[in-house]
């Protein structure tokens, strides 16, 4: 079983190297805790695709709002990879 939470954190750490990702609150929105804009969310999606072959259609971008929602939305996708 893939550790989806860690996968997302690793991606954020790579696309926003100046951000501290060590103490993220799972239920608070990522945008509130980090300096992430829509361009950064696109990068999260693109990295998921590039590294893990997981596709996130544009209408589902809001489902990546928190770490918890990332885990619940992405886990089934990782299970089928």
């Amino acid at each position, binding site marked *: 079983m893939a550790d989806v939470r860690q996968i997302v954190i690793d991606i954020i750490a790579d696309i926003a190297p100046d951000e501290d990702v060590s103490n993220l609150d799972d239920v608070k929105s990522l945008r509130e805790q980090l300096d992430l804009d829509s*361009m950064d969310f696109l990068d999260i999606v693109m990295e998921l*695709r*590039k590294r893990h072959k997981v596709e996130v259609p*544009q209408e589902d971008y809001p489902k990546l709002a928190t770490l918890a929602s990332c885990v619940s939305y992405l886990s089934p996708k990782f299970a089928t990879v």
Partner: protein
Amino acid sequence: MNYDAIVIGAGMSGLAAGIRLAMFDKKVLILEKHSIPGGLNSYYQRKNFDKGGIRQFDVGLHVLTNFIKKGEKGKPFSKLLKQLRLSYDDFKLCPQTHSKILFPDVELKFSNEFELLLNEVSEKFPQEIDNFLKLTEKVKTFNELDLSIGYSSSREALKEIIKDELLIEMILCPLLIYGSAWEDDMDFAQFVIMFKSLYFEGFSRPEGGVRTILSLLMKKINDLGADIRFKTAVTKILIKDSGEAFGVVANGEEFYAPVILSSIGYPETVRLTPKIDLNPRIGAMTFLESIFVFDKKIPLDQNDSTIIFYNDSKKYSYRPATDYFDSSSAVVCFPDNYETNKQDGEGTVRITYMANYSQWRDLERAQYDEMKEKVGQSSLSLIRSLSQGFDGKLLFKDIFSPMTIERYTWHLNGTVYGSIDKTRDGKTPFKNLFIIGTDQGFLGIVGAMLSGISMANLHGLMGANEI
């Protein structure tokens, strides 16, 4: 040859777009007509007359706008670093000392700390400071990145807030000459971009000039394995009967891709397509630049500004010169006046005048050289009057004209800030063909790169994701 995307032009926007696409495994082809990258922000060299060897000069880059301190977030420059995965330190930014807007009897200084400009306005236009604060509030809350907004006049917007016409002229002067394709006015969304990037954020210069930026971008392009070809002019954009772009012809060879991003200008791009009823207008603003090298730097007590926006009357005229050039206003750039610069060694000054393309085009060679000589003399006397007491000996000078700009950038009529018909969402009447760079509507070097990034994201990455 088949690619996932073709980028026309290896200037700031084309390189940035190419990096974004290649970063996510797109097979990218970048085609550039010139033998080196940079487009309007490039470089050249000249042989030294006296002591041999060569001198290197930048074109375009006077300063890099959108200055941020290391670690500052949420700004255009920090977005650019993240999107291109570049590090702040790689740019080796040297912050400006300060710059000034110099009109008869009054000057306004500004620096990378906005407080300086606020203090200057409150001291020199005390009755207007509240209005100026209102303007800054309007600028702060305006979403200039909204791709759906149309043209609105900045002058009209300013008149509603500020009563003193001289202050309006002074605020507009640097913003117009550092980016407006329109004469005597600019689109309000562009005004906001410029106000933020010049007055809120400020100026710096990468150590090593424009080549520092270009070598960072070229290294990324090469590391990512994008195909980049120089001296390769696109002569035709291939369009299906259904109106869909599907490739280009360059050096007689056909290249195919489902996405084509063109950075060469909107009118210039349209000319490569089959005839349609669309004629984006060619912008009229073109310039002359003189570069002078002295045997020593101008001492700081004789001139400590990084840029002087000079105007000799109370009204600022931003339009093509009626004569060959207009010496009533100028941008004077002192590339030595940066916080980290040493004061020994040779000194350089660059002066930009507004010009008139058709006048220069019609000159015979001998008259052309003679006219350039006049520009040089006029520029030199302005430098002397702005740096009273400076006795440096002139070692070298070089002048480029609208014809030089046209010759090396292929922008029609030597236009520098592109067409006055922008396409903010990058779309053209042809499916799969998009405009990036100045004619998409973002400004300056940072703006050009962000244009390439956001159009590549929108039309190259997100679009592809939907399939």
